[in-house]
């Protein structure tokens, strides 16, 4: 009987200590916000284009984290982003509904620009500079190609141009051998079914 009491007392004391430690740890290592949302947000390409039906990348991340949105709505992220999100959420990957277009850049035809600042207000990443009644221009290095500036422009002076290919950013393709192609295909199939 005594040994039973000992066991109960020692286990109880252990549970108490563990409880105190956990309570302190929760206070000390407390994280503001939803860590899942932040992790999803880092996977997204941050174009803020709204093609997913949400007003930006963060809102989409919140929607995915809460289970409200599917994992396959990010168009510019393509298959890689979809697979990463599915992996993180622990759900089955889904086919993309839309094929991602080639990366584009917005370009303001300056002699037609009337300086209305509407595109500046529309740009989600502050990539357009200019002032009222002054020409506006797009900072090419900052433009995500989201096309949100096209619609508000009253004189239609914004074009979407192909992103120029830089020799520094060129990279070697996969070797042109059968085994290379086969290995690559197998990997993609595997990724598609996991």
């Amino acid at each position, binding site marked *: 009987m005594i040994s039973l009491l000992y066991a109960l007392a020692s286990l109880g004391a252990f549970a108490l200590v563990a409880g105190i430690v956990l309570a302190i740890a929760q206070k000390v290592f407390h994280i503001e916000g939803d860590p899942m949302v932040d992790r999803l*947000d*880092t996977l*997204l*390409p*941050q*174009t*803020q284009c709204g093609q997913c039906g949400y007003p*930006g*990348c*963060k809102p989409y991340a919140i929607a995915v984290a809460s289970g409200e949105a599917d994992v396959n709505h990010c168009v510019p992220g393509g298959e890689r982003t979809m697979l990463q999100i599915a992996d993180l959420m622990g759900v089955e990957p889904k086919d993309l509904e839309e094929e991602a277009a080639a990366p584009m850049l917005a370009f303001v035809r300056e002699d037609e620009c009337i300086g209305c600042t509407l595109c500046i207000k529309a740009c*989600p*990443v*502050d*990539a357009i500079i200019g002032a009222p009644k002054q020409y506006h221009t797009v900072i090419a290095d*900052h433009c*995500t190609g989201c096309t949100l500036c096209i619609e508000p422009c009253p004189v239609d002076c914004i074009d979407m141009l192909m992103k120029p*290919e830089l*020799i520094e*950013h*060129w*990279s*070697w*393709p*996969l*070797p042109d*051998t*059968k*085994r*290379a192609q086969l*290995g*690559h295909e*197998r*990997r*993609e199939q595997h990724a598609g079914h996991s």
Partner: protein
Amino acid sequence: MPAIVRKLAQRLGMLQHSFVGGVHPNMHKLSADCGIEDCDLSPVHVLPMKQHIGEICSPLVAVGDQVLRGQKIAKSEGYLSVPVHAPTSGRVVKIEEHAIAHPSGMGLPSIFIESDGDDTIDESLSPISDWANSDPTQLRERARMCGLAGLGGAVFPTFIKLVQDKRFPIETVVLNGIECEPFLTNDHRLMLEHAEEILEGMAILMHMVGAASGIIAIENNKQDAAEAMQLALDARSDMDDVAVMVLPTRYPQGSEKQLIYTLTGREVPAGKLPMHIGVLCQNVGTTKALFDAVVHGRALTERIVTVSGDALPNPANLRVRLGTSVRTLFARQGLEDFSGTHIVHGGPMMGERLKHPDFPVVKSSTGLLAMSSQFMGSAHTVEQPCIRCGHCSEACPISLVPNLLADQCRSDQFDKAASYDLFDCIECGACSYVCPSNIPLVHYFRYGKGQLALQRREQAFADASRQRSEARDARIEREKAEKAARRTRVRQTHAPKTDQAKADTDKPAAVDSGAAAVSKESKD
């Protein structure tokens, strides 16, 4: 000798230091006995705006401008960059994109200079004959202004290495005359014919970095060059602490980190530079160019190019002005029909295979090779399965595991490949060379490196975009709050007088009652 036996022997002190791995390809030094010939001026020279590792230059001249030989025609746009100079006197005829020696087949903006035949030299840079009493920083600026970049093929801007850093004092200057690539003989001939100038250049290097000792490293398939350098060295009284070292021939001994280990027994850590272990390594061609820049005040406008290959009738070593068309060089050596011929820029182990010869000679052009299809053989067209023979691991001078890395790159497991030190690979090609299954290992590594770089670039862009987007959201919030605050203020000032007066009378009363409460409490 297998790598493990060599390592063991080194531990026991039975062997001199020597890098691990490596291969012994047939050297095919066809042009070793051909003296350096001067190549005629081209009617038009094409100068790409980037001939070095680093940032691209921007043109300083406009179409129609007259230029002199050695005149700066494009300036650096950043620290890791060196300017471009006119290779001869003439007129700028156009500035547009032109194909360069790049595996992508893409071009770069280039300046086209039509030669006037006079070859007038720009004399604006004065010679520094008394370099021994000159400030090293002044000499360093000279190296930068003259457009010097590593002429061994890597074209890293030379001036960056020529620095005296108190934290990392340079003890030894290594002169790299190894030239371990098959076919190439340009450094060999340069050492034979310009030994004194190279030594003077080495003395300038040692003065610039404050080094006490020096080593001239030459492989034993170039005994005559070693003798010529030794002879020139004996004739000088001021270079007692410099020695010529003849090393057994093995590829890739000329690679900077491998050479330094062989000579000093010290390893350059991954991600660090030779400077961090007190060594400066320079190619002999670059050293000669430094001599010309300092002592003669001449910018880098020409280099020695080995034109060779089994499909070329007359192999040669040519002194070529930068911007000369490669097609005319091959034609000069008797090759005009390129059907069934592969063109290689650089050496056969590390060089780029190119589709056509319509690109200009640049600072990195160590060699131009024309190879017959039979010579290139079926290599790397029929890839067989890996049989785990381990030859690639034994041949790797960095001690990587090439077959594993290739598997990871093939199946897009780039992060895993990076954790197996993919980025330490120097792409020497020793693994591909020994592979009995013809696996294009280096090609897989280049693919993997490129994809990883792309992913990192995209991630960095996404992070920057997120920051800008968040800053914008915060700004909009702030502006909204400010507007709301202003609105309430305006509403208050325009509010009816009675309300205002009431508010005023209310306030002191509240304060009084508060004070009363406090005094009450203190009494209690």
